């Protein structure tokens, strides 16, 4: 029962949103002044799972910027913003929100057809049928610390050093023991013949020179 009321509420809420959206996108030539139009829009930040930041605190610090700083607007509690007196032409709207990556939006305000504006995300050239801006991704400013594991100790320079030492100490004598004394002698002979191995000959690409 409880879940069904919840879903009903959700449905109503969605309905409500949709009833609002078309009006949010439409813009009217403001009465009384002829030199501009109004851009209405909405920034929607979905709450990603259970984050420690609460959403309202973030909304208050979001800025919407027109044409690279010409005008700055802020969000209402419901996420709506507006720019008034915008002349016809092609404009750029950017959203600055810490923690989220927003694509800038290209906004065409038509002069011939008042009441018509078109918007498209410039990052992926996706057109927006409704002027609702959503973050493309969340931004993580910090590296995540890897939890402690034995591997990280082993991989660290100290760990490698220890490992090498252990190998030398315990495995090498075993290897030497298993080796045929004659074979060993031969190998030593060979080494002497080759001389001191140089660094260069060990490197790849040395053959070319």
């Amino acid at each position, binding site marked *: 029962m409880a879940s069904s009321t919840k879903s009903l509420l959700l449905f109503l809420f969605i309905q409500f949103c949709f009833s609002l959206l078309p009006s949010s996108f439409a813009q009217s030539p403001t009465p009384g*002044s002829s030199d501009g139009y109004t851009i209405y829009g909405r920034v929607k930040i979905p709450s990603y799972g259970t984050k420690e930041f609460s959403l309202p605190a973030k909304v208050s610090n979001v800025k919407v910027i027109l044409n690279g700083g*010409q005008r700055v607007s802020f969000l209402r509690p419901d996420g709506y913003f507006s720019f008034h007196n915008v002349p016809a032409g*092609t*404009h*750029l709207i950017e959203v*600055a929100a810490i923690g989220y990556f927003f694509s800038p939006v290209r906004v065409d305000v038509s002069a011939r057809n008042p009441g018509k504006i078109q918007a498209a995300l410039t990052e992926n050239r996706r057109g927006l049928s409704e002027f609702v801006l959503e973050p493309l991704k969340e931004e993580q400013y910090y590296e995540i610390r890897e939890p402690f594991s034995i591997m990280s100790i082993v991989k660290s320079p*100290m760990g490698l050093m220890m490992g090498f030492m252990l190998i030398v100490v315990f495995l090498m004598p075993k290897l030497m023991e298993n080796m045929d004394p004659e074979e060993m002698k031969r190998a030593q002979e060979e080494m002497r013949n080759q001389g001191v191995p140089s660094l260069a000959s060990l490197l790849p690409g040395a053959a070319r020179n």
Partner: protein
Amino acid sequence: MAMAIRVFLSFLLFLSLTNLASSLYEDQVGLMDWHQQYIGKVKHAVFHTQKTGRKRVLVSTEENVVASLDLRHGEIFWRHVLGTNDVVDGIDIALGKYVITLSSGGSILRAWNLPDGQMVWESSLQGSKASKSILNIPKNLKSDKDDLILVFGKGCLHAISSIDGEVLWKKDFAGESIEVSHIIQSPEVIYVAGFVGSSKFYVYELDAKSGELLKNNHIALPFRTSGESLYVPDDKFLVLDDARSKIVTININNGDINYNQKQISDLVKDSSGQAVILPSRLPGLSALKINSQVLLIKVTNEGELAVVDKIDNTAAFSNALSISEDQHVFAFVQYEDNKIHLSIKDVNDWSRDLLKENLVIDHQRGNIEKIFINNYVRTDRSHGFRALMVMEDHSLLLVQQGEIVWSREDGLASVVDVTTSELPVEKEGVSVAKVEQNLFEWLKGHVLKLKGTLMIASPEDKIAIQKLRLGSSEKSKMTRDHNGFRKLLIVLTRAGKVFALHTGDGHIVWSITLNTLRKSEDCEHPVGLNIYQWQVPHHHALDENPSILVIGRCGPSLSAPTALSFLDAYTGKELNSLSLAHTVARVIPLPYTDSTEQRLHLIIDFNKHAHLYPRTPEASEILKHEFSNIYWYSVEADNGVIRGHALKSNCIHEVVDEYCFVFRDLWSIVFPSESEKIIATVTRKSNEVVHTQAKVMTDHDVMYKYISKNILFVANAAPKASGDIGTATPEEALLVIYIIDTVTGRILHRMTHQGCQGPVHAVFSENWVVYHYFNLRAHRHEMSVIEVYDQSRADNKDIWKFLLGKHNLTSPISSYYRPEISAKSQSYFFTHSVKAIEVTSTAKGITSKQLLIGTIGDQVLAVDKRFLDPRRTLNPSQAEKEEGIIPLTDSLPIISQSYITHSLKVEGLRGIVTVPAKLESTSLVFAYGVDLFFTQIAPSRTYDSLTEDFNYALLLLTIVALVAALFITYVLSERKDLQEKWR
């Protein structure tokens, strides 16, 4: 040999490839960086001290900041930085829960939620002409719908509901040509008063409910007025005539207007000088300022004037504060022989001081410019007062009971220029006991850290670890360190105050208000221009303290007189100051120093003279020696001309002036004004270090970078498209890029970007320039890189030529010779608008570079220079990949971990400064705006030192384990030997 180098290089590359982004763990925040938040010089302040809730003061500032401050400590509860054109005209509180701000010349009205700063509503007010803007909110608003906010702006009066910001009615006054100066609200009617012309005074009476015009009345005064007027309650206005000798009282009584006039000399006997009406709102009183004396004049009901008091040496007046129904008080500050008196008096009961306090304020803060008062009820039910003072250096003080409760250095919100200075060298004499104690502490710390790494630390331990890391006393020491991380950042603020900040934790080491940059009679609007390193003791002058040169000018006009100040960088003492007889157009620090390591500076004035500083015979001698090697250029952006100059001879006035020179024009480049307009010029930093000129390509080829200090990047836009984005179409937009040699005036490279426009932000380093602009066709921002190579040295690779001495490597490089240049270029999309671009600089220039991009969101992003490499291709070959060439993508990646400001914002970002540390891998970065941010970055990681995280305890443990293993194996082998022998 070449092989070894290659191996070494590829090893380095491997190291640097492992992480492209220099990133940060969350618990490292605050270790190497600090962030300070400011608001700027306060313009208006409103107190909110209701019984419940936190006590706060709401302020708006000259940096267009609206903020709520804690009244107890001065901390910021919340803050919003409005756009640069969005100047705040008024701030007030409505309904007890909204902060109302009027901005943008009276066209935007916003309401902010008082507790958290969330914007509640926003109204755009339309109007046809610019006018004074007035915000009027009636006090004691009760929350019913009828409460109106009255806003006059853009020639219209608007009545706005304070609940949702709806415009209820609007009355246009644009047609009446009235300069509205007052709006008076009473429950039923609204009076709008102002002058038409300079002698007609109009009063309109409007219905408060509907905005209908009820009455319209005017009076023509028989003389001209000064334009300023003051409203005195009970329907009176005070006006001065244009000679400022008469006070006129205009009375409006039930629609009738009449006036009285009185000579000021009748009120005061010895009145000489200009009278000014102080705009303080004091019921029943008006304040008239004559010279430094303030007359308080009472207007009686009959319109008679009477002088109540004369106050000498006043600095600031507050508005009236009503503390009860019929009690209004106000505050003023007086200066009397080095003492500051704060007095609070009752408007009606003049004889009694409610408060008289002596204040002790650091004289470095200058005069008190503004004062706002607020009252509180003491336990014995008497009234106590607190005063918020705005000082001449833009700092903000809260004074209560004669004490400064808190202060904010908000001058730092308007940094004009930055330079750095080294700290003193550490002296000998550290006691042994201290070292031992430190050793124990040190070990304890590392054991804790080890626990942390092994994840066996308890929560208390974790807190202790974090505290240990942040509270390291090392970083805020006042001496030079081995790595060169500790320095002084010396900043000049718009108020003319110089601060020295410690790079370790950002605390203010010293600050000084320069006398040459203080407001005085002959210097009305002083501005600080630049700050330079004057003397950097190096080898033979180590005993002396380094010094700083500050250049300031009286007023914004270029012809205003200028002054130089010399400061000691360690103590902040002013060593010397000079008032110059000439103007300053440009300052050129020359690459020469005298025997005391003072740097030679040329100051170019507007009369085409160059002046040499310091004015010593030695400096003049040095300059004579290098006379023919000094070149500079000047950019006249308005005319579209760039000129090159060189020194010619001494000035000849009456006598030959040793330190003054005339110069000649060597060359000039005139851009066609109908098609191009200069919008940006950038040159290389004069102190940049380049490690090597050669660059090894993948195919073992060597390219020689064209490295010249005399190289200039110029960006020109089509005049039609030189405005903001959104004003031009792609067809009319054009961006032309030039790279110019400033000695010969030769254009080394020219490039056009069709359909692109500014603003252009660029940075020049070594042989490359990176610039950011807007591409209208794609409607995206773009960044381009141009790398310049010297072709004439390209054939120096042949070993035989070296052996036979036929190479030209030892031939002197002259700026006169015409090198064959080849330029490579590539462009990429970049998501954000940009406010500033800088490049990291390191001590030797070996470390790879990162671009620091200040984005529109006030963050600083570090982008590796390898992403801006013109040799990037779609499918790099294996060899190219090995070299570290990244496959070409159409846009630059934004890796969120490489924001060096991590989750912080440098609000109102204006500039980024980088300074090399002594450690080659590390560069110090200082970003300033309304906020300040400092951090250290290592573009290729700290390859030359152990990181902060390095665990010494683990190292010790390993060594101990190894030694133990050695012993055990030794013992084992001995035993085995013995056994062998027994067999």
